[in-house]
């Protein structure tokens, strides 16, 4: 058996083990490299930075257990960014799991706020909780809040929430921040709230979904996009609030290199085989 055949029959589990090591090593031995800011992240940051003080924004929290480690740091930073600017936030989630993680992020953000920043529940922010029904649920909620949800996350009746006084649909809001995670739900926000009510939208999705939404960015329907952990790390950097995302972004280095080496190796083997007429 030639070396090529042996390499070709390489057990799947060896590749898995190599990947584990490549991903765990930088976590145990962190190295920070300089990082360029992607154009989409810069746009999303500028958009958030230009939301005027005193306005109210819609905030969808769609991160779940799997995507919270990468998106959570950025989500926390965005909440911090908004609250310190004096922008009020109305949260909701279209995922049952995401609902809890949104609350976790709110708590983390509140704990980080400088003393004296107004951040009272019901006055400066509201969490409407989980809304079932996906795109239909989104449409239902933002056309008539009171008919869709009776109470917020803490079981406070909607009518007892000062922030929502006189507000029953999306028209009073000045921006949408859609932290869709891997839900693929960004178009729900664009279709059901942004276009019908004419409210600009920006947000975050996991890295894999960035290309899907790039047509919306070039069309001006989406103001910017943070992609995955890299996006979170860039937001932390732009707001000068170093946090957990940076280390994770750096940890992708070795894994990425391993993947690239695997592709190159696989193709070298393939071309050797082909030159021998085996493939």
């Amino acid at each position: 058996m030639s070396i090529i055949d042996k390499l070709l029959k390489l057990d799947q589990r060896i590749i898995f083990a190599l990947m584990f090591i490549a991903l765990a090593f930088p976590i145990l031995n962190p190295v920070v490299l300089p990082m360029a800011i992607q154009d989409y992240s810069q746009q999303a940051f500028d958009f958030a930075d230009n939301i005027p003080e005193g306005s109210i924004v819609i905030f969808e929290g769609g991160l779940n257990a799997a995507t919270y480690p990468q998106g959570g740091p950025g989500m926390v930073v965005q909440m911090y960014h908004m609250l310190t600017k004096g922008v009020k936030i109305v949260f909701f989630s279209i995922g049952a799991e995401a609902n809890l993680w949104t609350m976790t992020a709110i708590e983390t953000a509140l704990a980080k706020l400088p003393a004296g920043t107004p951040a009272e529940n019901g006055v400066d922010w509201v969490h409407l909780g989980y809304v079932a029904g996906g795109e239909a649920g989104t449409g239902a909620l933002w056309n008539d809040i009171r008919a869709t949800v009776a109470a917020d996350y803490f079981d406070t009746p909607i009518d007892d929430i000062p922030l929502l006084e006189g507000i029953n649909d999306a028209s009073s809001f000045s921006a949408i921040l859609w932290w869709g995670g891997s839900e693929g739900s960004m178009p729900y926000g664009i279709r059901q709230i942004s276009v019908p009510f004419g409210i600009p939208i920006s947000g975050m999705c996991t890295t894999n979904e960035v290309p899907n939404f790039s047509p919306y960015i070039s069309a001006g329907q989406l103001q910017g996009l943070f992609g995955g952990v890299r996006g979170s790390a860039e937001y932390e950097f732009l707001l000068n609030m170093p946090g957990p995302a940076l280390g994770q972004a750096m940890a992708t280095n070795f894994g990425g290199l391993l993947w690239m080496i695997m592709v190159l190796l696989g193709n070298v083997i393939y071309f050797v085989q082909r030159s021998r007429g085996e493939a």
Partner: protein
Amino acid sequence: MPKLRRLQAIDTIEEIIGRCVEMGRPAWYLMDTVDMTTPSVLAPTVAAFQILAYTARMAARLGSKFFVPVVQGLAYSIAYDIVEEAYKAEGKQEDFDPFGTVMYLPAGADRMYIINNMWSERVAGVFFMGSWYHKAVIFTENAARVGALSLGGTDTTHNIPFLVAICDYSIIGEELYALGAYVSQDPTQTASLAGQDIGKYIALIIILLGSILATVGFDISGIFTW
């Protein structure tokens, strides 16, 4: 009646089932997300059902063991009906196992079941149809390694790459709907696709006209902004 372009995938279905019969190993039909209350998932799910009807009949006719796991309750009962019908239509009802042919597996926890059983049953052919999410890579990679011949088709844009790169045969995006219409021989579906084609021609003409006007200096920024 407009004629649809014949897709190569139609022959592939028969080829894959035929191979499973030859090798005496099962063929699997996987659909991933089938939440039918979300319209964007409904369309690929319906197309996947149409292809399922055709594939199940093919499996019943050629006598291949067939397995369809479904991850959602409402879709499960529909898939169950479709496959049972297909076996009835071929007069092979005794081959239909009420507990084993179509099985309900919960979304999120089906990964391990499918990976494990793919290896223990040594599947020889797998169909990946419908609305596919992250499981696309896991299942297609395992299928490729088990040595199964696979046909992939989805319209979820972020997972098409894997079906294209890993599956032996693939159909992309709306080709899924076209295949559904083609195999179900459904004139309404064909007419509907033809109607959508007209929409595309109109879109192309508007885009080309608009960009030519923009090139020669017309201001078209106000269009479609009522």
